[in-house]
């Protein structure tokens, strides 16, 4: 980008001015000098390796006294944790402990597809079915249960043919009893089976939310690692078409909030297959968010005996240099179309398909943003506390210096999904909104 086009929309609180690149700092200082009465430099100019978030200067605001500066110290020393009160003389006195570093999620790269591998075009629906069938052939402890998964062949035909191949013992129609069968599946998993529990849609899984979170996600931790559950909850998530508020919610953010769960949301048939196989084999509870609109979309899937993809690894769906668009699941359809439109306007967008929401592949996002300096997130879910908000926060925490514009979020509007066709369209994100957001962060 030509440097003249760099405009900052960021507004910073002068008292917490962060360590920035030199030109930025100079620019901000000169700006601040005009506003503030006085300042105290805490870190001398030219100091190397100043940690991000270290205050480098204190600037007095209007009406503030100069004595306020004297008490300011560079916050290099760790603040002392409060000493916990020991309740009795017998209890060993707890040392004020600092929380250890959270382990960084690690994910392998996608397996290499051998040259000459046949690519079979199939729908996501077929890919999901094949993934389940392959894993059920491989492991007798794997079974599938849910409403209409057997005789009816799946409300969305995702389990088509499974009853015929595996029989009623392993393909189980449940009553309409989400709370009950979710808990029953978790119990079976605690006993060592590997259930695939289908929710007709994740909208109905709210009835089962307590079991998913309190029983599935937390038991491994609460048992000190003794007892976990290997279970997959899958089904369509988010809006379908014209089904209104109670059948159109996107739960991406809800589940990805929970430690102990893994959350996957693929956008292509190949990813759906490779990741569902990985989810079934994963020792932890996995929430597998599908999308009704995508079920019928066809895309190539490598014809391999055992095609398994790594959980926790994002994919560069389209390489580019000017702006990073981050999406997953059906959001990818908006993102990729927007990227094409942007290309015709001379903006070279990079599109990241997150694929896994938890653990999130922050490295791939940051590497891209470090290159482009601009980011747009796309999701059907609501904006407040959404996945886009989390991505924006991570970029702000770890790639602030690389940003040339604030992160933009394209999301579902904060309303219950309306039924009327025109309003529904407005409530959902659109290609035009993604294009607009991408142009905005490029100052175009």
């Amino acid at each position, binding site marked *: 980008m030509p440097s003249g086009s760099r405009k900052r929309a960021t507004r910073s609180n002068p008292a917490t001015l962060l360590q920035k690149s030199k030109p930025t700092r100079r620019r901000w200082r000169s700006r601040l000098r005009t506003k503030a009465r006085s300042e105290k430099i805490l870190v001398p100019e030219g100091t190397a390796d100043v940690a991000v978030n270290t205050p480098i200067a204190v600037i007095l605001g209007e009406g503030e006294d100069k004595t306020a500066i004297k008490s300011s110290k560079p916050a290099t020393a760790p603040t002392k944790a409060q000493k916990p009160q020991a309740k009795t003389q*017998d209890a060993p006195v707890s040392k004020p*402990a600092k929380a250890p570093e959270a382990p960084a999620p690690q994910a392998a790269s996608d397996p290499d597809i051998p040259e000459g591998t046949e690519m079979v075009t199939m729908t996501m629906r077929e890919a999901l079915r094949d993934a389940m069938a392959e894993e059920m052939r491989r492991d007798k402890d794997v079974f599938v249960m849910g409403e209409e998964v057997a005789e009816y062949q799946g409300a969305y035909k995702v389990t088509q043919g499974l009853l015929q191949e595996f029989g009623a013992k392993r393909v189980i129609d449940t009553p309409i009893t989400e709370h009950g069968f979710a808990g029953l599946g978790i119990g079976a998993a605690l006993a*060592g089976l590997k259930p695939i529990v289908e929710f007709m849609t994740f909208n109905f899984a709210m009835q089962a939310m307590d079991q998913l979170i*309190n029983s599935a996600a937390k038991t491994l931790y609460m048992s000190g690692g003794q007892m976990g559950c290997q279970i997959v909850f899958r089904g369509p998530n988010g809006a379908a078409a014209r089904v209104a508020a109670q059948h159109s919610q996107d739960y991406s953010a809800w589940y990805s909030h929970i430690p102990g769960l893994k959350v996957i949301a693929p956008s292509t048939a190949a990813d759906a297959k490779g990741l569902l196989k990985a989810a079934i084999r994963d020792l932890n509870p996995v929430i597998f968010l599908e999308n009704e609109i995508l079920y019928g979309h066809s895309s190539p899937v490598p014809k391999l005996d055992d095609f398994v993809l790594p959980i926790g690894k994002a994919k560069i769906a389209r390489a580019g240099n000017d702006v990073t668009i981050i999406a997953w699941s059906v959001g990818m359809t908006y993102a990729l179309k927007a990227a094409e439109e942007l290309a015709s306007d001379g903006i070279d967008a990079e599109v990241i398909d997150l694929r896994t929401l938890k653990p999130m592949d922050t490295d791939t996002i940051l590497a891209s943003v470090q290159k482009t300096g601009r980011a747009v997130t796309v999701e059907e879910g609501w904006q407040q506390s959404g996945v886009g908000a989390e991505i924006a926060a991570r970029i702000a925490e770890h790639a602030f210096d690389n940003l040339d514009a604030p992160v933009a979020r394209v999301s579902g509007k904060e309303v219950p999904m309306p039924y009327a066709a025109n309003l529904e369209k407005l409530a959902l994100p659109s290609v035009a909104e993604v294009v607009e957001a991408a142009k905005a962060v490029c100052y175009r």
Partner: protein
Amino acid sequence: MAVAQKNPSADVKSVAEFSKEQELSSYRTMLVIRRFEEKAGQMYGMGLIGGFCHLYIGQEAVVVGMQMVLKEGDQVITGYRDHGHMIATGMDPKGVMAELTGRAHGYSKGKGGSMHMFSVEKGFYGGHGIVGAQVPLGTGLAFANHYRGNKNLSVTYFGDGAANQGQVYESFNMAELWKLPVIYVIENNRYAMGTSITRSSAEVNLSRRGLSFNIPGDQVDGMDVRAVKAAGEKAAEWCRSGKGPYILEMLTYRYRGHSMSDPAKYRTREEVDEVRTHHDPIDMARHRILEKKFASEDALKKIDGEVRDLINQAAEFATHDPEPDVSELYTDVYR
């Protein structure tokens, strides 16, 4: 306030004939649970145990009698009033007490606490803090037995309070529909926290709660370990022969408050004393033992002493075991 039931008057009157060994061993286990809980109460008062702590005192015969009918591979699961179940399944009181004090060698490395302990080895599947949540889980344990075609069953305990949760009936339906080997043991101690059963339940005979699912149920004198065993035998045979689930309503009583912070003002002192004096499961076992001359006063005193030592050792261990290492903060979230 509604009038509480006077005495547990069960419709299953039959009691199992206990041998000397059975009387003595069940007496001893009930006593271990009693003394453990008394000690836990003391340690709570000393600030060594934090959070919630729900004592099982008064209900010991239920879990001890049921445990006598279980076989290798059977599973046990319950709610938050779970210390007695852990001891009955054979878990080490040291590990249970150290979990209560939140120490490194507690059953959950100090990360679970009173309501969340497990032992794969002993077939104890928790220890669940959300009222009623263990019922679908226990039904799932039974599902696993059914799927594998073994002859094991799951004993799924819950209280009179949990009996009003919707997921209990979702579980009943699937369990009977698929003929799952699960004994639902409803420990009716008459109070869901501070709400007596007559104030919370349209049908107070909880053994009838499975009627519309065709699940048979019996009311049992849960203060008599022999009655519990007899009812348990009948239910277990039903389950193991492939007939599906069975409900046992154990009429029992807790002497202490719902949790440590409960002054139990919703019932009279007399009501508690009446049960304590005339229906205490441990006193009754003691009298039988003496009456049948299975053991002398001195021999029983010796058992009492051994039990006290065991519990004191557990308390000692749980007091001096270190807290979990800070590195444990992030372990066991995933595996």
